[in-house]
């Protein structure tokens, strides 16, 4: 078991290295240099060249990637914070520490000051959505999977498919029209400040609703398919012919088996909810992680992008690991000794 976990940890580090290098390489092709972005549009070409030389930004890609890694693990100080650059970039944690994601050229702030706050906001949004998606999709999936092709199955399937196929921006606008304009009981934006006169809990309702509507139908469909397959298994027949009631058969025999396959899908939703909710965040002006990534990539803010990449990869790998552990918990056949 220890070996298994160590193995997974090593894989996780390797994945993070590969992903961060890819992002680093791709950023090469975005217009504008680090120096130009740091100095702003009004700096002269001479100033930019000077800073480029100081930052050694003309070194080969791999060398610069290595330097970035060095900053990250705290082996070397962040060159942007060097007072000689005259940029006046100051990280209160110091220029050299483990986990130094560098300086965001977009926000003119240390990445660590920006990103965790945003991630926290998104985590709240995602967590609330996930808490609703899990029970909703399980209930919908199980109920429609009980009797394939029955009236209940068809009704629920139509609901699920309709909801899943409405894009987030459409359902967002629709909900805003309904609950903000026609029947104003909720705020139309969610900046997570009380300035607009709405208490913060109210601001979560619509973004969470949009996410749940978009996502739960898909997961419910997955659970439905798995449930249908399980209900046809001979051990369900065994349970029924033992004289058990339908309810006991489902709760005692079918449910756990039916959750084995969709378990990964369910966990994958965490990844989606953390990094893929850009549209919802934009619609509701929500200060979240997805929007940060979007802004950073439009601006070419390498430091922020790299940090975001590492975080999302880490989340993805961790959820996969949780998925595997969950499998083992659910299915005794694949437990490792």
């Amino acid at each position, binding site marked *: 078991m220890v070996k298994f976990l160590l193995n997974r940890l090593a894989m996780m580090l390797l994945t993070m290295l590969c992903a961060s290098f890819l992002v680093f390489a791709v950023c090469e092709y975005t217009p504008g240099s680090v120096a130009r972005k740091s100095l702003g549009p009004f700096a002269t070409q001479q100033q930019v060249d000077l800073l480029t030389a100081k930052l050694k930004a003309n070194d080969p890609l791999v060398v610069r990637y290595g330097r970035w890694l060095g900053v990250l693990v705290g082996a070397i100080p962040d060159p942007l914070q060097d007072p000689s650059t005259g940029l006046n970039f100051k990280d209160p944690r110091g220029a050299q520490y483990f986990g130094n994601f560098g300086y965001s050229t977009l926000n003119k702030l240390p990445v660590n000051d920006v990103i965790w706050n945003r991630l926290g906001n998104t985590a709240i949004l995602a967590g609330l959505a996930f808490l609703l998606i899990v029970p909703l999709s399980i209930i919908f999936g199980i109920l429609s999977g009980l*009797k394939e092709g029955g009236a209940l199955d068809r009704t629920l399937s139509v609901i699920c498919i309709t909801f899943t196929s409405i894009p987030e921006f459409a359902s967002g606008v629709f909900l805003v029209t309904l609950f903000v304009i026609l029947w104003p009981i909720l705020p139309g934006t969610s900046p997570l400040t009380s300035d607009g006169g709405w208490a913060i809990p109210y601001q979560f309702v619509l973004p969470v609703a949009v996410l749940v509507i978009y996502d739960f139908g898909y997961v419910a469909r997955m659970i439905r398919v798995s449930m249908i397959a399980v209900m046809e*298994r*001979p*051990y369900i*027949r*065994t*349970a*029924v*012919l*033992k*004289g*058990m*009631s339908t309810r006991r058969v489902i709760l*005692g*025999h079918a449910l*756990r*088996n039916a959750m*084995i396959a969709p378990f990964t899908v369910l966990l994958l939703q965490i990844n989606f909810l953390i990094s893929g909710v850009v549209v919802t965040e934009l619609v509701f002006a929500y200060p979240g992680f997805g929007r940060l990534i979007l802004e950073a990539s439009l601006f070419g803010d390498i430091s922020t992008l790299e940090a975001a990449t590492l975080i999302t990869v880490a989340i993805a790998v961790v959820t996969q690991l949780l998925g595997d552990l969950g499998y083992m918990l*659910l*299915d*005794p*056949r694949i437990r490792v000794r």
Partner: protein
Amino acid sequence: MNLIVSNPQGSAMSGSSPSHTVLDVNDLRIEFHGKSETVVAVPTLSFRVKAGESYGLVGESGCGKSTTAMAIMGYLGSTGVIAGGSIRFEGKELVGASARELREIRGRQIAMVYQDPMSALNPVKTIGSQLAEVPLLHLGVSRTEAMEMAAAMLEDVRLPDAGDMLKRYPHQLSGGQQQRVVIAMALLARPSLLLLDEPTTGLDVTVEAAVIDLIGELRSRYSTSLLFISHNLGLIAETCDRVGIMYSGEMVEEGPTGDLFRRPRHPYTQGLIDCIPDITHDKRSRSLAAIPGHIPLPQERPIGCFFAPRCTGFTAGLCDRPDLELEHIGGDHMVRCIRWRDMKRSQPAQLAQIGKAQVQTQAVAVSGLTKLYKLGGDRTLKANESVSFNAAKAEIVALVGESGCGKSTLARIVTGLDRATSGEVRIAGENVAEIQAKDRPRDLLQSVQMIFQNPDSTLNPSHCAAFSIRRSIKKFGIRKGKAAIEERVRELLEMVRLSPAIANRKPNQLSGGQKQRIAIARAFAADPALIVADEPVSALDVSVQAAIVTLLLDIQREKQSTMLFISHDLALVRHVADKVVVMYLGKVMEQGTVEEVFDGGTHPYTEALISAIRSPNPDEKRRDRVHLTGDTPSPINVPTGCRFATRCHRKVGAVCDSVAPPLRKMSDTHEIACHIDATELRTTPSRYGALGQGRA
């Protein structure tokens, strides 16, 4: 010893009178309503099971026997409907019973044992919790009491270490153990009727023997009535008091077991009995009489006798009258055949003398073949260990053994699907043991062809039947040009007795037998020198099996190809093979000609295998059953001495556990690996002798 055994409180005791009827099925009609059509699975069926009786329901797949069992349990799925008739259990009507009434009967008064125990048990729940559910549901006991009852029941079904067993999961048990658990589960609430739906199909023969013994023992102990559903006539003949033969949803013959098997009256029953191979005859003394044609689909049942299209005694104006009844022909024996008085049992066809292959040119020589699978760590799985045997040209060598004995691994190495760890396989003088199929030259590939076990999964469902035959001809360049290839395809289809019209059908439009004929045609399309047939007929119904085996033997004789015939069915091997190699846990236990292995002194394991064969012939003396204990050990940690020592009934002593057995040369061709010396081996009590009285 425990609560259950010391206090028999079950409902089984209620029926004290011997003639009391437990189950009365009367004019039962079962239909399946699809979206556009209605299929009548069982048109009309009547039979009775009396208290304490064991009633056997026999028939081939699709005859409606399992459907009948499910109808009794009230479990026909969403499309199945009981359209008429009644099922009375202990006087109570089950047709139309409410869900609540059914729940009280299911598991409590009627319990069931299923065909495939692995899938009948929930993989994510422990044995203990699955067993305890039954008393918790039906007997109103506490959880601890239920667990105690479960543990006691596990001891009753002879599972060792019941306490530990309760905590295990189904996948940690062997097939035989799983079936014992299912039986224990069925018996926990002391039902008065036990439905057994092919309870031993899929189990190894020695395991099957033990399970059948157990069922017999528990039956008398708990005085449970049995409804035994099977396609295996031998098994039914041995375990049942009365037998009903079903054909296409109808009872065609019913009677007391001895009477029915001694004097079968219906031509179908006669055909069924004649088409199963028996241990006393080989291919030189008897050919299997196949029943022509196939079971009609429910939509294409003829008017009158359903068996008419396949019957040699069909008489127009007599057999196609719509009101054929089951006719009493003395005693309890009933038959649904208007011409039963005229139906003479056809005599086994006399064979053209098949001489033994005269020229003994070596075709395949396997020597010292070993295959180890590394499983990580220091664990290795020994699939084959120094296996050696020869096959002469045009000879059929049977590889026999139970699951896990390494016979399929051997086949994979010979065909190049896997490579040997060490040792040699010489085909036409060339060692191919370590050459995989992708590295083999084309002429070598062509010379070794394989016939697989399950024709359903080996034909590509999206290609037509002739596709694989055509491809084989093209790839090996047997014929050139489109017309010549088509000509050859037609010849091959004719060779396997299929009409050319079948060439363009998709596999799902073919029956199992037709699919296997296509597979045989494909294998022979390449004009191979060696055919490896891995359980080629074990997935087929007995009447079809006979036809396929006969066909295979005919073609093999005509083409003079060598064949490795892999099978677990010893009666079939007796009928097919020239030479037999008996394997156990990766090692050869015995090899010799078919006569030597079946008639002479044999290895204790072979003896056990042969003794497990059941014959439906009631006049054939019961063989002394050899009772093997335990399960086949895991091939990962094999016993150090003789592989068979842990289960052997003729163990010499400690030497068996520690020293590998010497090879006893019984004759030039007969070898036995055993510590018992040759003279003593020779005096093995004859298996057809008078010693065994069998079970009472």
